[in-house]
Protein backbone atom coordinates (compact mmCIF):
# COMPACT_ATOMS: atom_id res chain seq x y z
CA UNK A 1 0.00 0.00 0.00
CA UNK A 2 2.73 2.42 0.99
CA UNK A 3 4.65 1.56 -2.16
CA UNK A 4 1.58 2.25 -4.25
CA UNK A 5 1.03 5.66 -2.64
CA UNK A 6 4.68 6.39 -3.24
CA UNK A 7 4.35 5.53 -6.94
CA UNK A 8 1.18 7.56 -7.38
CA UNK A 9 2.77 10.56 -5.72
CA UNK A 10 5.85 10.25 -7.90
CA UNK A 11 3.73 10.00 -11.05
CA UNK A 12 1.72 13.08 -10.05
CA UNK A 13 4.88 15.08 -9.39
CA UNK A 14 6.37 14.12 -12.74
CA UNK A 15 3.11 14.93 -14.51
CA UNK A 16 2.89 18.38 -12.92
CA UNK A 17 6.50 19.11 -13.78
CA UNK A 18 5.91 18.04 -17.38
CA UNK A 19 2.81 20.24 -17.70
CA UNK A 20 4.76 23.23 -16.42
CA UNK A 21 7.67 22.54 -18.74
CA UNK A 22 5.36 21.96 -21.71
CA UNK A 23 3.89 25.45 -21.37
CA UNK A 24 7.33 26.99 -21.02
CA UNK A 25 8.47 25.09 -24.12
CA UNK A 26 5.36 26.19 -26.00
CA UNK A 27 5.91 29.86 -25.14
CA UNK A 28 9.59 29.73 -26.04
CA UNK A 29 9.09 27.81 -29.28
CA UNK A 30 6.31 30.15 -30.47
CA UNK A 31 8.51 33.09 -29.60
CA UNK A 32 11.52 31.63 -31.39
CA UNK A 33 9.60 30.59 -34.52
CA UNK A 34 7.67 33.85 -34.90
CA UNK A 35 10.56 35.97 -33.68
CA UNK A 36 13.20 34.37 -35.86
CA UNK A 37 11.04 34.56 -39.00
CA UNK A 38 10.79 38.34 -38.62
CA UNK A 39 14.31 38.77 -37.29
CA UNK A 40 16.76 40.62 -39.46
CA UNK A 41 20.15 42.09 -38.71
CA UNK A 42 18.93 45.46 -40.05
CA UNK A 43 16.70 45.70 -36.97
CA UNK A 44 19.83 46.67 -35.03
CA UNK A 45 20.77 49.41 -37.55
CA UNK A 46 17.49 51.30 -37.98
CA UNK A 47 15.27 53.15 -35.56
CA UNK A 48 11.61 52.33 -35.12
CA UNK A 49 10.59 55.14 -37.47
CA UNK A 50 12.48 53.28 -40.24
CA UNK A 51 11.15 49.87 -39.23
CA UNK A 52 14.06 48.92 -36.94
CA UNK A 53 14.57 48.49 -33.19
CA UNK A 54 17.91 50.20 -32.61
CA UNK A 55 16.61 53.19 -30.64
CA UNK A 56 14.35 50.95 -28.54
CA UNK A 57 17.08 48.53 -27.49
CA UNK A 58 19.47 51.34 -26.62
CA UNK A 59 16.70 53.25 -24.86
CA UNK A 60 15.67 50.25 -22.78
CA UNK A 61 19.27 49.70 -21.71
CA UNK A 62 19.71 53.37 -20.80
CA UNK A 63 16.54 53.33 -18.68
CA UNK A 64 17.59 50.13 -16.91
CA UNK A 65 21.17 51.39 -16.43
CA UNK A 66 20.01 54.65 -14.82
CA UNK A 67 17.58 52.69 -12.65
CA UNK A 68 20.45 50.43 -11.61
CA UNK A 69 22.67 53.43 -10.90
CA UNK A 70 20.00 54.73 -8.52
CA UNK A 71 18.72 51.41 -7.19
CA UNK A 72 21.94 49.47 -6.52
CA UNK A 73 23.64 51.96 -4.18
CA UNK A 74 20.39 52.77 -2.33
CA UNK A 75 19.38 49.13 -2.05
CA UNK A 76 22.82 47.97 -0.96
CA UNK A 77 23.12 50.73 1.62
CA UNK A 78 19.71 49.83 3.04
CA UNK A 79 20.57 46.12 3.05
CA UNK A 80 23.85 46.84 4.87
CA UNK A 81 21.96 48.93 7.41
CA UNK A 82 19.41 46.18 8.04
CA UNK A 83 22.00 43.43 8.49
CA UNK A 84 24.92 45.23 10.11
CA UNK A 85 23.57 48.19 12.05
CA UNK A 86 19.83 47.92 12.58
CA UNK A 87 18.33 46.09 15.50
CA UNK A 88 14.94 45.76 17.13
CA UNK A 89 11.41 46.34 15.94
CA UNK A 90 12.23 49.24 13.67
CA UNK A 91 14.56 47.07 11.61
CA UNK A 92 11.99 44.28 11.35
CA UNK A 93 9.44 46.85 10.17
CA UNK A 94 11.72 48.15 7.40
CA UNK A 95 12.55 44.60 6.34
CA UNK A 96 8.85 43.68 6.16
CA UNK A 97 7.98 46.84 4.25
CA UNK A 98 10.76 46.14 1.76
CA UNK A 99 9.47 42.59 1.28
CA UNK A 100 5.96 43.91 0.68
CA UNK A 101 7.33 46.41 -1.83
CA UNK A 102 9.01 43.56 -3.66
CA UNK A 103 5.64 42.00 -4.40
CA UNK A 104 3.89 45.29 -5.21
CA UNK A 105 2.22 45.09 -8.66
CA UNK A 106 4.44 46.89 -11.14
CA UNK A 107 1.49 48.80 -12.63
CA UNK A 108 0.91 50.33 -9.18
CA UNK A 109 4.49 51.55 -9.11
CA UNK A 110 3.99 52.98 -12.61
CA UNK A 111 0.85 54.78 -11.43
CA UNK A 112 2.66 56.08 -8.35
CA UNK A 113 5.50 57.57 -10.40
CA UNK A 114 2.92 59.00 -12.81
CA UNK A 115 1.32 60.82 -9.88
CA UNK A 116 4.47 62.08 -8.17
CA UNK A 117 6.82 62.68 -11.13
CA UNK A 118 5.01 62.77 -14.46
CA UNK A 119 2.15 65.10 -13.44
CA UNK A 120 4.28 67.64 -11.52
CA UNK A 121 6.91 67.76 -14.30
CA UNK A 122 4.23 68.15 -16.96
CA UNK A 123 4.77 65.05 -19.05
CA UNK A 124 6.29 61.62 -19.57
CA UNK A 125 10.08 61.47 -19.52
CA UNK A 126 12.93 59.00 -19.57
CA UNK A 127 13.81 60.16 -16.10
CA UNK A 128 10.37 59.22 -14.73
CA UNK A 129 10.69 55.78 -16.36
CA UNK A 130 14.10 55.23 -14.78
CA UNK A 131 12.72 56.21 -11.36
CA UNK A 132 9.87 53.71 -11.72
CA UNK A 133 12.34 50.95 -12.62
CA UNK A 134 14.61 51.95 -9.72
CA UNK A 135 11.67 51.61 -7.32
CA UNK A 136 11.10 48.12 -8.74
CA UNK A 137 14.75 47.28 -8.20
CA UNK A 138 15.43 48.68 -4.72
CA UNK A 139 13.55 46.08 -2.63
CA UNK A 140 15.14 43.22 -4.58
CA UNK A 141 18.62 44.62 -3.98
CA UNK A 142 17.80 45.24 -0.30
CA UNK A 143 16.61 41.66 0.08
CA UNK A 144 19.63 40.16 -1.70
CA UNK A 145 22.15 42.27 0.21
CA UNK A 146 20.44 41.59 3.53
CA UNK A 147 20.31 37.82 2.92
CA UNK A 148 23.81 37.45 1.53
CA UNK A 149 25.36 39.46 4.38
CA UNK A 150 23.49 37.30 6.88
CA UNK A 151 25.36 34.28 5.49
CA UNK A 152 28.75 35.78 6.36
CA UNK A 153 29.87 34.10 9.62
CA UNK A 154 29.92 36.25 12.75
CA UNK A 155 33.50 35.17 13.47
CA UNK A 156 34.73 36.84 10.29
CA UNK A 157 33.45 40.21 11.53
CA UNK A 158 34.93 39.58 14.97
CA UNK A 159 38.28 38.62 13.43
CA UNK A 160 38.37 41.97 11.63
CA UNK A 161 37.45 43.88 14.79
CA UNK A 162 40.07 41.90 16.72
CA UNK A 163 42.74 43.18 14.31
CA UNK A 164 41.88 46.74 15.21
CA UNK A 165 39.62 47.53 12.26
CA UNK A 166 36.61 49.76 12.84
CA UNK A 167 33.16 48.40 12.14
CA UNK A 168 32.71 50.21 8.86
CA UNK A 169 36.17 49.06 7.67
CA UNK A 170 35.23 45.46 8.47
CA UNK A 171 31.97 45.82 6.54
CA UNK A 172 33.61 47.40 3.49
CA UNK A 173 36.82 45.33 3.36
CA UNK A 174 35.71 41.94 4.61
CA UNK A 175 31.98 41.34 4.95
CA UNK A 176 30.93 42.73 1.56
CA UNK A 177 33.88 40.99 -0.11
CA UNK A 178 32.83 37.69 1.43
CA UNK A 179 29.26 38.18 0.19
CA UNK A 180 30.28 39.73 -3.13
CA UNK A 181 29.35 36.87 -5.45
CA UNK A 182 25.90 36.42 -3.94
CA UNK A 183 25.16 40.14 -4.01
CA UNK A 184 26.37 40.46 -7.61
CA UNK A 185 24.22 37.54 -8.71
CA UNK A 186 21.19 39.05 -6.99
CA UNK A 187 21.80 42.42 -8.61
CA UNK A 188 22.13 40.81 -12.05
CA UNK A 189 18.84 38.98 -11.55
CA UNK A 190 17.20 42.22 -10.39
CA UNK A 191 18.57 43.92 -13.50
CA UNK A 192 17.26 41.12 -15.70
CA UNK A 193 13.88 41.63 -14.09
CA UNK A 194 13.60 45.39 -14.62
CA UNK A 195 14.94 45.31 -18.15
CA UNK A 196 11.90 43.28 -19.21
CA UNK A 197 9.32 45.42 -17.38
CA UNK A 198 6.52 47.15 -19.28
CA UNK A 199 3.98 48.33 -16.75
CA UNK A 200 6.19 50.75 -14.81
CA UNK A 201 7.18 52.44 -18.09
CA UNK A 202 3.76 52.55 -19.72
CA UNK A 203 2.80 55.96 -18.38
CA UNK A 204 6.15 57.21 -17.19
CA UNK A 205 8.70 57.08 -20.01
CA UNK A 206 6.20 55.98 -22.68
CA UNK A 207 8.19 55.29 -25.82
CA UNK A 208 9.45 57.06 -28.87
CA UNK A 209 9.91 56.20 -32.55
CA UNK A 210 13.12 58.19 -32.70
CA UNK A 211 16.59 57.82 -31.29
CA UNK A 212 16.91 59.98 -28.18
CA UNK A 213 19.27 60.63 -25.31
CA UNK A 214 17.11 63.39 -23.83
CA UNK A 215 15.78 62.10 -20.54
CA UNK A 216 13.35 64.99 -20.13
CA UNK A 217 11.23 63.80 -23.09
CA UNK A 218 9.33 60.59 -23.81
CA UNK A 219 12.01 57.96 -24.10
CA UNK A 220 12.32 54.97 -26.49
CA UNK A 221 11.48 51.72 -24.71
CA UNK A 222 11.53 48.25 -26.20
CA UNK A 223 8.87 46.81 -23.89
CA UNK A 224 6.37 49.64 -24.27
CA UNK A 225 6.86 49.56 -28.06
CA UNK A 226 6.18 45.82 -28.08
CA UNK A 227 2.87 46.60 -26.38
CA UNK A 228 2.07 49.36 -28.89
CA UNK A 229 3.16 47.38 -31.96
CA UNK A 230 1.18 44.30 -30.92
CA UNK A 231 -1.93 46.48 -30.76
CA UNK A 232 -1.59 47.78 -34.29
CA UNK A 233 -3.59 46.30 -37.14
CA UNK A 234 -0.79 45.87 -39.70
CA UNK A 235 0.89 42.51 -40.05
CA UNK A 236 4.33 44.19 -40.34
CA UNK A 237 3.95 45.89 -36.95
CA UNK A 238 3.04 42.65 -35.26
CA UNK A 239 6.00 40.89 -36.91
CA UNK A 240 8.24 43.62 -35.54
CA UNK A 241 6.70 43.07 -32.09
CA UNK A 242 7.58 39.36 -32.31
CA UNK A 243 11.14 40.14 -33.32
CA UNK A 244 11.42 42.63 -30.45
CA UNK A 245 10.02 40.07 -27.99
CA UNK A 246 12.52 37.56 -29.24
CA UNK A 247 15.45 39.94 -28.79
CA UNK A 248 14.24 40.95 -25.32
CA UNK A 249 13.87 37.32 -24.22
CA UNK A 250 17.35 36.46 -25.44
CA UNK A 251 18.79 39.47 -23.59
CA UNK A 252 17.05 38.55 -20.33
CA UNK A 253 18.13 34.94 -20.78
CA UNK A 254 21.77 35.96 -21.26
CA UNK A 255 21.73 38.13 -18.12
CA UNK A 256 20.14 35.31 -16.12
CA UNK A 257 22.65 32.78 -17.38
CA UNK A 258 25.48 35.16 -16.55
CA UNK A 259 24.12 35.34 -13.00
CA UNK A 260 24.03 31.58 -12.70
CA UNK A 261 27.45 31.23 -14.26
CA UNK A 262 28.99 33.51 -11.61
CA UNK A 263 27.34 31.54 -8.80
CA UNK A 264 28.45 28.20 -10.19
CA UNK A 265 32.05 29.35 -10.65
CA UNK A 266 32.10 30.45 -7.03
CA UNK A 267 30.81 27.10 -5.84
CA UNK A 268 33.50 25.12 -7.65
Amino acid at each position, binding site marked *: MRLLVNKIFLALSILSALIGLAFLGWILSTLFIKGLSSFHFNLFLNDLIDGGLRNLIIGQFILAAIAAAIGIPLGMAAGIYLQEYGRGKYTTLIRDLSDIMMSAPSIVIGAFVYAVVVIPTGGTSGFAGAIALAIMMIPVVINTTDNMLSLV*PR*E*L*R*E*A*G*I*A*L*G*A*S*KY*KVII*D*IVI*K*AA*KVGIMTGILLAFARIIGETAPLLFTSETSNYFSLDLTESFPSLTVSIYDLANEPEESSRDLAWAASFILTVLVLIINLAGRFITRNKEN
Partner: protein
Amino acid sequence: MPIMNIKKFSFTYPKTEYPSLRNITLPIEKNKITALIGPSGCGKSTLLRAMNRIHDLYPGNKYDGVIDILDSQTNTRKNILDIKKEDEFIKLRQRVGMIFQKPTPFPMSIFDNVAYGLKIAGIKNKTELKDRVEDSLKGSALWKEVHDRLGASAMGLSGGQQQRLCIARAVALKPEILLFDEPTSALDPISTGAIEELLVELKKDISIAIVTHNMQQASRISDFTAFMYLGDLIEYDKTENIFLNPKEKQTEDYITGRFG
Protein backbone atom coordinates in the same frame (compact mmCIF):
# COMPACT_ATOMS: atom_id res chain seq x y z
CA MET B 1 54.72 41.21 37.20
CA PRO B 2 51.62 40.05 35.31
CA ILE B 3 50.95 41.77 31.98
CA MET B 4 47.22 41.70 32.64
CA ASN B 5 45.41 41.66 35.95
CA ILE B 6 41.78 40.71 36.26
CA LYS B 7 40.38 41.87 39.60
CA LYS B 8 36.92 41.15 41.02
CA PHE B 9 35.59 41.02 37.51
CA SER B 10 31.91 40.35 36.83
CA PHE B 11 30.17 40.30 33.50
CA THR B 12 26.50 40.32 32.52
CA TYR B 13 25.22 39.76 28.99
CA PRO B 14 22.53 42.10 27.64
CA LYS B 15 18.93 41.29 28.51
CA THR B 16 19.95 38.93 31.31
CA GLU B 17 19.81 39.68 35.01
CA TYR B 18 22.17 37.08 36.33
CA PRO B 19 25.90 37.67 35.70
CA SER B 20 27.69 35.07 33.56
CA LEU B 21 30.97 35.73 35.38
CA ARG B 22 31.24 36.53 39.07
CA ASN B 23 34.08 38.08 40.97
CA ILE B 24 36.92 36.65 38.92
CA THR B 25 40.45 37.50 40.04
CA LEU B 26 43.24 36.16 37.85
CA PRO B 27 46.61 37.33 36.53
CA ILE B 28 47.85 36.74 32.97
CA GLU B 29 51.57 36.34 33.45
CA LYS B 30 54.05 37.86 31.04
CA ASN B 31 55.57 35.51 28.42
CA LYS B 32 53.65 32.57 29.84
CA ILE B 33 50.73 30.52 28.58
CA THR B 34 47.65 30.66 30.79
CA ALA B 35 45.00 28.04 30.06
CA LEU B 36 41.32 28.52 30.92
CA ILE B 37 39.58 25.18 31.37
CA GLY B 38 36.15 24.07 32.51
CA PRO B 39 32.97 22.45 31.24
CA SER B 40 30.81 24.09 28.54
CA GLY B 41 28.99 27.17 29.78
CA CYS B 42 31.46 27.84 32.59
CA GLY B 43 32.28 31.28 31.19
CA LYS B 44 35.83 30.71 30.00
CA SER B 45 35.18 32.10 26.51
CA THR B 46 33.17 34.97 28.00
CA LEU B 47 36.18 35.86 30.15
CA LEU B 48 38.58 35.62 27.22
CA ARG B 49 36.34 37.82 25.08
CA ALA B 50 36.35 40.47 27.80
CA MET B 51 40.15 40.76 27.63
CA ASN B 52 40.04 42.59 24.28
CA ARG B 53 36.47 43.79 24.79
CA ILE B 54 35.26 42.10 21.63
CA HIS B 55 31.97 41.78 23.54
CA ASP B 56 31.42 45.44 22.76
CA LEU B 57 30.62 44.57 19.15
CA TYR B 58 27.19 43.76 20.59
CA PRO B 59 26.04 46.59 22.87
CA GLY B 60 24.36 46.27 26.25
CA ASN B 61 26.92 44.26 28.25
CA LYS B 62 27.62 45.13 31.85
CA TYR B 63 31.17 45.03 33.21
CA ASP B 64 32.17 45.26 36.87
CA GLY B 65 35.58 45.23 38.49
CA VAL B 66 38.91 45.86 36.81
CA ILE B 67 40.94 44.38 33.96
CA ASP B 68 44.17 46.32 33.78
CA ILE B 69 46.94 45.96 31.26
CA LEU B 70 50.58 46.82 31.82
CA ASP B 71 52.28 49.41 29.65
CA SER B 72 55.87 48.14 29.85
CA GLN B 73 57.39 51.39 28.59
CA THR B 74 55.91 53.63 31.26
CA ASN B 75 55.38 50.80 33.74
CA THR B 76 51.84 52.04 34.38
CA ARG B 77 48.61 50.06 34.34
CA LYS B 78 45.42 51.01 32.55
CA ASN B 79 41.94 49.62 33.18
CA ILE B 80 40.61 48.45 29.81
CA LEU B 81 37.05 48.53 31.13
CA ASP B 82 37.25 52.34 31.15
CA ILE B 83 37.69 52.45 27.37
CA LYS B 84 34.89 54.25 25.59
CA LYS B 85 36.35 55.82 22.46
CA GLU B 86 36.72 54.03 19.13
CA ASP B 87 40.42 54.85 18.72
CA GLU B 88 41.20 53.47 22.18
CA PHE B 89 39.38 50.24 21.32
CA ILE B 90 41.46 49.97 18.16
CA LYS B 91 44.68 50.47 20.16
CA LEU B 92 43.59 47.87 22.71
CA ARG B 93 42.89 45.30 20.01
CA GLN B 94 46.22 45.96 18.38
CA ARG B 95 47.87 45.19 21.72
CA VAL B 96 45.60 42.23 22.55
CA GLY B 97 45.03 40.01 19.50
CA MET B 98 42.56 37.15 19.16
CA ILE B 99 42.38 33.79 17.36
CA PHE B 100 39.05 32.03 16.99
CA GLN B 101 37.83 28.46 17.06
CA LYS B 102 37.14 28.24 13.36
CA PRO B 103 39.85 29.65 11.08
CA THR B 104 38.70 33.05 9.79
CA PRO B 105 40.72 33.84 6.66
CA PHE B 106 39.50 36.99 4.94
CA PRO B 107 38.37 36.62 1.31
CA MET B 108 41.61 38.05 -0.09
CA SER B 109 45.14 36.89 -0.88
CA ILE B 110 47.47 35.32 1.68
CA PHE B 111 49.64 38.44 1.62
CA ASP B 112 46.70 40.81 2.04
CA ASN B 113 45.39 38.76 4.96
CA VAL B 114 48.60 39.21 6.89
CA ALA B 115 49.01 42.83 5.78
CA TYR B 116 45.42 43.77 6.70
CA GLY B 117 45.99 44.71 10.32
CA LEU B 118 49.25 46.45 9.44
CA LYS B 119 47.58 48.61 6.81
CA ILE B 120 44.89 49.55 9.32
CA ALA B 121 47.60 50.42 11.81
CA GLY B 122 48.81 52.93 9.22
CA ILE B 123 51.82 51.16 7.70
CA LYS B 124 51.91 52.13 4.04
CA ASN B 125 55.56 51.63 3.08
CA LYS B 126 55.60 48.65 0.68
CA THR B 127 59.01 47.27 1.73
CA GLU B 128 58.12 47.48 5.40
CA LEU B 129 54.81 45.69 4.74
CA LYS B 130 56.60 42.98 2.77
CA ASP B 131 59.17 42.46 5.51
CA ARG B 132 56.60 42.35 8.31
CA VAL B 133 54.42 39.89 6.36
CA GLU B 134 57.40 37.65 5.69
CA ASP B 135 58.53 37.80 9.34
CA SER B 136 55.09 36.91 10.66
CA LEU B 137 54.64 34.05 8.20
CA LYS B 138 58.05 32.70 9.22
CA GLY B 139 57.17 33.21 12.86
CA SER B 140 53.98 31.22 12.36
CA ALA B 141 55.74 28.36 10.57
CA LEU B 142 53.79 28.95 7.38
CA TRP B 143 56.40 30.66 5.20
CA LYS B 144 57.84 27.46 3.69
CA GLU B 145 54.39 26.34 2.56
CA VAL B 146 53.15 29.60 1.08
CA HIS B 147 56.19 31.72 0.08
CA ASP B 148 55.69 30.95 -3.62
CA ARG B 149 51.97 31.74 -3.66
CA LEU B 150 51.49 34.83 -1.49
CA GLY B 151 49.14 36.27 -4.10
CA ALA B 152 46.85 33.23 -4.04
CA SER B 153 43.54 33.31 -2.21
CA ALA B 154 43.73 32.39 1.46
CA MET B 155 40.54 30.37 1.05
CA GLY B 156 42.53 27.71 -0.83
CA LEU B 157 44.65 26.79 2.21
CA SER B 158 43.91 23.77 4.40
CA GLY B 159 42.19 24.29 7.76
CA GLY B 160 45.43 24.02 9.72
CA GLN B 161 47.20 26.39 7.35
CA GLN B 162 44.31 28.85 7.58
CA GLN B 163 44.56 28.81 11.36
CA ARG B 164 48.31 29.46 11.21
CA LEU B 165 47.58 32.27 8.75
CA CYS B 166 45.20 33.79 11.29
CA ILE B 167 47.95 33.55 13.90
CA ALA B 168 50.42 35.18 11.48
CA ARG B 169 47.89 37.93 10.86
CA ALA B 170 47.61 38.62 14.58
CA VAL B 171 51.38 38.26 15.21
CA ALA B 172 52.12 40.78 12.44
CA LEU B 173 50.79 43.56 14.68
CA LYS B 174 53.35 42.60 17.36
CA PRO B 175 50.72 42.29 20.06
CA GLU B 176 51.65 41.99 23.73
CA ILE B 177 48.91 39.45 24.45
CA LEU B 178 47.25 36.87 22.20
CA LEU B 179 43.91 35.33 23.15
CA PHE B 180 43.13 31.89 21.71
CA ASP B 181 39.53 30.67 21.84
CA GLU B 182 39.75 26.90 21.36
CA PRO B 183 42.10 27.36 18.39
CA THR B 184 42.54 23.67 17.58
CA SER B 185 39.09 22.22 18.18
CA ALA B 186 38.28 22.33 14.44
CA LEU B 187 41.62 20.84 13.39
CA ASP B 188 43.13 17.38 12.87
CA PRO B 189 45.79 16.03 15.31
CA ILE B 190 48.75 16.93 13.08
CA SER B 191 47.62 20.53 12.58
CA THR B 192 46.86 20.68 16.31
CA GLY B 193 50.41 19.58 17.09
CA ALA B 194 51.81 22.26 14.77
CA ILE B 195 49.74 24.97 16.47
CA GLU B 196 50.73 23.81 19.94
CA GLU B 197 54.42 23.95 19.01
CA LEU B 198 53.83 27.38 17.57
CA LEU B 199 52.22 28.65 20.78
CA VAL B 200 55.19 27.51 22.86
CA GLU B 201 57.47 29.27 20.36
CA LEU B 202 55.39 32.47 20.43
CA LYS B 203 55.46 32.92 24.18
CA LYS B 204 59.06 34.12 23.96
CA ASP B 205 57.63 37.43 22.71
CA ILE B 206 53.93 37.31 23.52
CA SER B 207 51.87 36.50 26.60
CA ILE B 208 49.15 33.99 25.82
CA ALA B 209 45.74 33.12 27.23
CA ILE B 210 44.04 30.06 25.76
CA VAL B 211 40.58 28.59 26.23
CA THR B 212 40.59 24.86 25.67
CA HIS B 213 38.28 21.90 26.09
CA ASN B 214 41.22 19.59 25.80
CA MET B 215 42.86 18.99 29.18
CA GLN B 216 45.84 17.21 27.66
CA GLN B 217 46.43 20.31 25.61
CA ALA B 218 46.30 22.51 28.71
CA SER B 219 48.75 20.26 30.54
CA ARG B 220 51.08 20.01 27.51
CA ILE B 221 51.52 23.67 26.72
CA SER B 222 50.38 25.93 29.55
CA ASP B 223 52.36 27.31 32.47
CA PHE B 224 49.33 28.34 34.49
CA THR B 225 45.83 26.94 34.50
CA ALA B 226 42.56 28.41 35.70
CA PHE B 227 39.62 26.09 36.30
CA MET B 228 36.21 27.71 35.97
CA TYR B 229 32.78 26.38 36.74
CA LEU B 230 29.37 28.05 36.26
CA GLY B 231 30.78 31.56 36.10
CA ASP B 232 33.12 31.24 39.05
CA LEU B 233 36.86 30.81 39.12
CA ILE B 234 37.33 27.69 41.23
CA GLU B 235 41.09 27.39 41.20
CA TYR B 236 44.12 29.05 39.63
CA ASP B 237 47.65 27.78 39.99
CA LYS B 238 50.71 26.54 38.15
CA THR B 239 49.62 23.94 35.63
CA GLU B 240 51.47 21.07 37.32
CA ASN B 241 49.77 21.84 40.62
CA ILE B 242 46.32 21.93 39.05
CA PHE B 243 46.82 18.60 37.33
CA LEU B 244 48.89 16.74 39.94
CA ASN B 245 47.83 18.28 43.19
CA PRO B 246 44.58 20.26 42.92
CA LYS B 247 43.38 21.93 46.10
CA GLU B 248 39.68 21.97 45.29
CA LYS B 249 37.50 18.87 45.07
CA GLN B 250 35.67 20.24 41.99
CA THR B 251 38.94 20.73 40.11
CA GLU B 252 40.01 17.20 40.88
CA ASP B 253 36.66 15.79 39.78
CA TYR B 254 36.87 17.69 36.50
CA ILE B 255 40.42 16.81 35.55
CA THR B 256 39.92 13.17 36.45
CA GLY B 257 36.89 13.15 34.16
CA ARG B 258 34.24 12.61 36.81
CA PHE B 259 32.11 15.42 35.35
CA GLY B 260 32.15 17.95 32.53
